[in-house]
């Protein structure tokens, strides 16, 4: 029982407002990932749910009960911090038992729950050690252990993996996902790593400057980003944006080029509008046999990743820069002109001013 309701929540530090009205409904057992660039207010939002930051305006409810006025300990939450926040002077066992002891649970129950959590997380062998004697990954597990022994209705994670090396991060990511599946505990997870966000989330909240720009499943966010910001933030390498104009019939034109770049059926009733035309590098491809190329890419720089080759260049020698992700087998050289094309269905159109999605 851990549904979370966040209603028009705002937060100001002194006169600076950092959260500008966020609405979010988290179903019981759901895994929500909040992702966004540094300083956008992710941690602040999470800390308001935890009760570590006062809510300036709006309401947060956990399990149907408003928690605005409740202390952190009364909210039925557990939190995993970026720096783990383990008590350095206590053994791993004491770290995990601390909360239960304060809650005056019987000794044998504490022991049972700590050992059970240690078994799940495979840290049974370290129970007597101090956190300082553990590796980063082990500390991370202890922090998770401390969270799960309390059997909370909500888990809160604030960038729990960002202090780990890349390989361990992948492994812990999987473990967190499995653990959450198994326990079925509602989770709110903050990260700025989009791979973590995409892989862990049931639903994603993409935040920018204190506003939730889109709340949707990872796939939907990738396929139909609601704003230009979301489109540019999710996906790697980032989406290409071109300043274009919609001509009669839905033709998309770049001012410098004679021929329209592409034709987009959904754009026809927006003729004359200035747009930001978005196309993902992975959706640019060499034309198939007999197909007319959409444009030529004058390649300035090539990055070889093995499986893929990234070609950075400009469209037909204009100022419009573009990155294309081509199969690793496709040989490209710097200074070359590569014919490329794109399917109209893979184009995204955003209003040039507001950045809101128009069509596509």
């Amino acid at each position, binding site marked *: 029982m851990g549904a979370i309701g966040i209603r028009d929540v705002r937060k100001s530090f002194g006169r600076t407002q950092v959260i500008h009205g966020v609405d979010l409904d988290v179903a019981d057992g759901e895994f929500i990932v909040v992702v966004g660039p540094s300083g956008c207010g992710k941690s602040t939002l999470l800390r308001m749910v*935890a009760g570590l930051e006062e809510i300036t305006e709006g309401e947060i409810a956990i399990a149907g009960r408003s928690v605005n006025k409740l202390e952190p*300990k009364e909210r039925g939450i557990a*939190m995993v911090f970026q720096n783990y*926040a383990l*008590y350095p*002077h206590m053994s791993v066992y004491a770290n995990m038992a601390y909360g239960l002891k*304060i809650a005056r649970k019987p000794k044998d129950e504490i022991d049972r729950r700590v050992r059970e959590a240690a078994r799940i997380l495979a840290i049974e062998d370290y129970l007597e050690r*101090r956190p*300082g004697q553990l590796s980063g990954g082990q500390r991370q597990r202890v922090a998770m252990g401390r969270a799960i022994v309390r059997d909370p209705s909500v888990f809160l994670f604030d960038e729990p993996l960002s202090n780990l090396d890349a390989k361990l991060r992948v492994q812990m990511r999987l473990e967190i996902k499995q653990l959450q599946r198994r326990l079925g505990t509602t989770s709110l997870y903050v990260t700025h790593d989009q791979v973590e966000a995409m892989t862990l989330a049931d639903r994603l909240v993409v935040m920018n400057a204190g506003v939730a720009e889109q709340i949707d499943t990872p796939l939907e966010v990738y396929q139909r980003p609601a704003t230009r910001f979301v489109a540019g933030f999710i996906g790697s390498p980032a989406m290409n944006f071109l300043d274009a104009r919609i001509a009669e019939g839905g033709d998309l034109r770049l001012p410098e080029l004679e021929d329209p770049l592409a034709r987009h059926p959904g754009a026809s009733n927006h003729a004359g509008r200035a747009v930001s035309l978005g196309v993902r590098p992975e959706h640019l491809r060499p034309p198939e046999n007999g197909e007319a190329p959409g444009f030529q890419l004058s390649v300035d720089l090539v990055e070889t990743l093995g499986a893929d080759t990234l070609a950075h260049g400009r469209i037909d020698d204009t100022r419009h820069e573009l990155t294309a992700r081509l199969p690793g087998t496709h040989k490209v050289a710097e200074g070359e002109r590569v014919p490329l094309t794109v399917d109209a269905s893979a184009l995204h159109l955003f209003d040039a001013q507001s950045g809101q999605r128009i069509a596509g």
Partner: protein
Amino acid sequence: MLKRVHFKHPVLPYLLVAPQLAVTLIFFIWPAAQALWQSMLVQDAFGLGTQFVWFQNYLELWGDPQYLNSIKVTAIFTISVTALGIGSGLFLATMADRVIRFASGYRTLLITPYAVAPAVAGVLWLFLFNPTVGILAYLMQGMGIAWNPLVNGEDAMIMVIIAAAWKQVSYNFVFFLAGLQSIPRSLIEAAAIDGAGPFRRFWTVIFPLLSPTTFFLMVVNLVYAFFETFATIHATTSGGPSNATNIMVYKVYKDGFVGLDLGSSAAQSVVLMFIVIALTVVQFRYVERRVEYGT
């Protein structure tokens, strides 16, 4: 380690350390040796006759009720000064750590006493506690407390303890504040989420994490109370009334320079020298230990 080849000139390294060596020899080793030598002599009050008596002076100390009294007084004094100084410093630092507005103003105010010379601090408290003109004495008399540090030994002791501790509070405050601020906020927050209230958070998380600081300050405060409170005592009670505040350091001065019993005075100062050596060893051996905050 630096290798020999760093110095081409054979004499240069010796020249470079010479000033430091000279200072140590002239101002420490030589007087210490003199004291050791002196402590084995008995001299008549006019300095005319001197006799070498081996450890006679030391043996006499253990039989001297005045000296035993001084040890007791010193124990009470140093322990009280240390406890009061550390307790107040910790309390003020904990409070200052929570202050957000005007924080630097408060801190500066709290640090100022450290800049006051011990004798001045002593005289300040002497006036505050003076039975005829002191405002604190006046307040206490108003509350019906009989107070006269000039006559009553216990009152005098309380006065010098407060005067000596007051000066040290600032020092302790600075270290505790630094210690508190190096404890990651997330630890306190984790404890709050675990259900610990402010009081429990302090005793189960904050205080244990401050223990290296506390230990370091304990040694520093003990050394201070033992050796650096001479001026405080000298400016206020001069060891009186009837030796009630005659701490060991003060007794060395009194016996040697007032009583002119140089042999016994030297023996007492050698005893103090061993105490300070012991405290320094403790400090070097254990204070280096540091709690790491497990990040």
